[in-house]
């Protein structure tokens, strides 16, 4: 397939903003401190789950329920980090660096810039997730029945879905004031609760399960667990084949990107109409 000049330009925009995101996130300190920083937060978040399990069960090794929670939580880091950061990117550009207006009038499309920023978060989070997986395998005895033909396509489709949700959130923040930094973390709670990330969907009431089945991340977490553990713990998705899961996730990923484009265009239009694309809020 020939690469058209437009596509080439778009790829360059994505690549540059990914690099920019990496720089913003990493060059504020020495590589050693940055490495510790990258590890401590996700490790602590995952340890909360492990400790909660330990407090109730009294043990943590060779426990299937803990493996379910651990893996779900480790991969939930992608959702949490991308949403947390993407909920902040627009405010950061607009009010902190005051560069949004320059980015906006440059030939690069701001949507593609946001794609690159989200990819930067995925890249950074991957470091933490890989280390969490290694720790899980070594210390918690998580089985390694790896099915890479299921894992990698599933992982990739999940990334697409997560990037779509991240851009949707960033688009909404084009209209919101900076009241705090919690908007992304708060929204991530939706996926934490309804995607079966850390407990089976069957724990939720019927309406919660039905809502959960609308989220692509539900299928993503299931695929990830099946491809690593080799079995499904959640009875709600137990009867669904791997192929069906992948196809549903594919559909969900496309829907997520579609949603992000629609929301971006709507928010951009409203932001320009209201004259708040480069507003400053000093609350």
């Amino acid at each position, binding site marked *: 397939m020939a690469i058209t000049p437009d596509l080439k330009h778009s790829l360059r925009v994505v690549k540059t903003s990914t690099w920019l995101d990496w720089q913003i996130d990493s060059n504020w300190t020495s590589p050693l401190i940055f490495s510790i920083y990258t590890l401590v937060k996700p490790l*602590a978040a995952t340890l909360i789950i492990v400790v909660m399990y330990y407090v109730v069960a009294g043990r943590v090794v060779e426990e299937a329920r803990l493996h379910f929670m651990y893996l779900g939580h480790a991969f939930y880091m992608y959702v949490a980090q991308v949403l947390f950061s993407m909920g902040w990117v627009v405010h950061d550009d607009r009010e*902190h660096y005051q560069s949004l207006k320059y980015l906006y009038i440059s030939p690069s499309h701001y949507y593609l810039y946001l794609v690159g920023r989200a990819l930067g978060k995925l890249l950074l989070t991957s470091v933490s997730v890989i280390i969490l997986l290694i720790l899980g395998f070594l210390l918690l005895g998580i089985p390694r029945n790896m099915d890479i033909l299921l894992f990698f396509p599933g992982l990739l489709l999940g990334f697409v879905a997560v990037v779509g949700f991240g851009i949707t959130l960033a688009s909404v923040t084009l209209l919101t*004031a900076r009241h705090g930094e919690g908007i992304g973390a708060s929204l*991530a709670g939706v996926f934490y609760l309804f995607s079966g990330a850390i407990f089976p969907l069957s724990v939720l009431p019927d309406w919660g399960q039905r809502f959960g089945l609308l989220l692509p991340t539900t299928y993503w977490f299931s695929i990830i667990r099946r491809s690593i553990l080799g079995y499904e713990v959640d009875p709600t998705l137990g009867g669904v084949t791997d192929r069906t899961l992948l196809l549903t996730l594919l559909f969900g990923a496309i829907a997520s990107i579609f949603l992000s484009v629609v929301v971006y265009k709507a928010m951009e239009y409203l932001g320009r109409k209201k004259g708040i694309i480069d507003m400053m809020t*000093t609350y």
Partner: protein
Amino acid sequence: MNLSLNLRAMVGRAYPRLIGANREPSWIFYETFLPVLTTAAYVCIYKALDAPKEFVGFVVIGGVMTAYWMNVLWSMAAQLYWEKEVGNLQLYMIAPMSKMALLAGMAIGGLFTTSTRALVILTAGIYIFKVDVDVSSITHLLLVFFLTLGALYGLGMLFSSLYLLWGREAWHLSNLLQEPVYLVSGFYFPVRKLGFSLALAASILPTTLGLDSMRQLLFPGAHTWRILTVEIETKILAILTIVFILLAKYALDHVEKVARREGRLIMRWQ
């Protein structure tokens, strides 16, 4: 010290936060409804594990306190860094009021949205998650709660002095101090389960003792997992409040001098 001037400065700094909250109410959705979902997720973990009923209550109280911890980190500690970056800090510095009054104003202004969030989580906990609370002493509970907030905001003021000197490290430190603090303070589980020594060491954070005391006062079964008695914890919280506020005053003055000397006080986009 001009008390009237500082009180006016405090009101002046609280004002934009209160007005801003009314002028652009998007926060109501993501600061009230959405955080309930995260708390609900932790409740569901315990339900999935068939944990004792008190644990659901522990999570709800932890969820309430996350609102304040987030506010302290982002809207107190990191705020002077933010003011520096957007160009307001020099205006504060040339104004005659105390920087402590400015920070107190931020705290009071931020408490409105934060307390709304906390209240929604608490209400959801009681009515949706059916948490049974049995308050042994409402006076003591309120005392512990306000002492915890006092110590917490004192700590926030102390952090803000560090953030005055720093660049992007400030933002990243706030980001870093979320989950690790949830872990060591036992926001979602009784921290005593990590061992008495660790729990005691974590008690340097006001949230640790505050949560432990509030749980003891709200749930009779919580005594099983307590770190210390409520009376001792209350005394320690009172000491922490005084120490953190005094340290904050000292640190603000000291760091301001260092930042002026090194020319970093209003250096932006580091």
